[in-house]
């Protein structure tokens, strides 16, 4: 059957590593060329280009990928549409915007890329703080003034409140990390593939209570690109997934500490927004790719999507069985960012597509038809509901 909604037709990734001898630009070109080939297209078919966050100021070294115009120029693209923005539905924003662009005829095939070189930028140091001066305006003003210098601190505030309110234990939180590590062992691109036990997890050093080392994702160098295509191009594509629904809502003040209920995130708004656009229900989802910049985010995403009741995510993940590859809701099947590496959301999109197309190798889940993707944390969120499309080859 011909699709009626926007498609994702290709995915490509560069090498992924802790410190790679390639620039962010080179990694980006590697990923884009792979994605375009994966779609069965040639570079000259690409007439749209987007990225997150683009040439934004005030962000940390390694967080910003190559400039949109450098990529356009380097690939010789003739663009009908382009976008780079740090504000919007978290890292999903450029994919969602590209879906709207192809649907409305602004372009036919848009490449969307996200590139990280945070591992190289860190040098031999650890995860860096927010590296700009304490601001006198903006959504982080008060947190920075109080010394909350890292997103780990922000996430710690959410985790503390959530665990207090619902009695969720550190061990339950740990199952997010343990499950991710188990899945990463079947992902040759994952950064952390050695075994991780609950004892290892509980013994790891505290970063910002109640979060410890393995609750935090790991910085990497790497680029991911996807091709977003118009539905009327399906016959030209090697394969495709349909974007069944998207969620972009953010309905409260954009201050981490002023979010009305710190046991929720913007994820809850974005997920509700997404479900309002589709006849599908949480029970129809075959697997989930839920942002895990910090393990607490994944628990909150599970509840945001309605995969378990409010306060029930700790019990849901406990033991790892439900979220395992053979479980009722396989979760973060490539190891997420906790073990796979911090590709800043795009790794989840890549894995969702590979699972839908049956290309996930040793970690392939059977009969995958519908995948939920939730990107972002705290006051930023975007969601995608992807369904399986045709495969031409």
């Amino acid at each position, binding site marked *: 059957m011909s699709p009626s909604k926007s498609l994702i037709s290709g995915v490509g990734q560069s090498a992924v590593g802790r410190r790679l001898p390639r620039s962010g630009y080179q990694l980006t070109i590697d990923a884009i060329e792979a994605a375009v080939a994966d779609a069965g297209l040639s570079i000259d078919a690409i007439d749209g280009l987007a990225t997150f966050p683009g040439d934004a100021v005030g962000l940390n070294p390694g967080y910003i990928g190559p400039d949109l115009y450098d990529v356009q120029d380097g690939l010789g693209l003739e663009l009908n549409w382009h976008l780079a923005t740090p504000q919007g539905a978290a890292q999903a924003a450029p994919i969602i915007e590209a879906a709207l662009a192809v649907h409305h005829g602004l372009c036919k095939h848009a490449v969307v890329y996200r590139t990280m070189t945070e591992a190289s930028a860190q040098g031999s*140091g650890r995860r860096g703080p927010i590296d700009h001066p*304490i601001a006198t305006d903006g959504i982080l003003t008060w947190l920075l003034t109080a010394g909350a210098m890292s997103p780990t601190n922000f996430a710690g*505030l959410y985790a503390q*409140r959530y665990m207090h309110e619902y009695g969720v234990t550190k061990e339950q939180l740990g199952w997010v990390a343990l499950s991710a590590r188990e899945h990463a062992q079947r992902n040759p691109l994952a950064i952390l593939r050695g075994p991780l036990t609950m004892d290892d997890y509980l013994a790891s050093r505290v*970063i*910002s*209570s109640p*979060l410890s080392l393995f609750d935090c994702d790991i910085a990497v160098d790497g680029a991911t690109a996807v091709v977003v295509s118009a539905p009327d191009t399906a016959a030209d594509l090697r394969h495709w997934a349909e974007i069944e629904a998207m969620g972009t809502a953010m309905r409260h003040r954009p201050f981490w500490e002023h979010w009305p209920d*710190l046991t929720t995130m913007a994820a809850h708004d974005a997920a509700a927004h997404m479900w309002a656009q589709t006849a599908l229900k949480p029970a129809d989802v075959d697997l989930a790719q839920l942002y895990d910049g910090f393990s607490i985010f994944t628990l909150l995403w599970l509840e945001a999507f309605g995969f378990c009741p409010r306060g029930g995510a700790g019990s849901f993940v406990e033991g790892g069985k439900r979220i395992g590859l053979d479980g009722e809701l396989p979760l973060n099947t490539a190891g997420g960012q906790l073990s796979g590496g911090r590709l800043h959301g795009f790794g989840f999109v890549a894995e969702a597509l590979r699972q839908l197309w049956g290309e996930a190798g040793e970690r392939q889940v059977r009969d995958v038809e519908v995948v939920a993707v939730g990107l972002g944390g705290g006051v930023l969120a975007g969601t995608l509901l992807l369904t399986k499309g045709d495969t031409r080859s």
Partner: protein
Amino acid sequence: MQLKPPGVLYTFTINRNPWGSQGEPDYGIGVLSFPNFSDVRLVGRLNEIDPEPNVGDLYGLTFDRSAGGLPRPTLVKWAST
């Protein structure tokens, strides 16, 4: 509105990681809520972290000087103010 102490510790985190070469190693950050003013929260540095606080503890708010010389909101256990 006039906001009167004490506030209630809505959540907190104890930072144990020295961010950057000049980073302080261990300190607490808390968020206060005020039961009679549901829209108001204040975030500040906890004045002590040993023993660790509990969600629901009562705090007042003062200002001290950060290392950079800026006034920094500091949460002080209500019983000790």
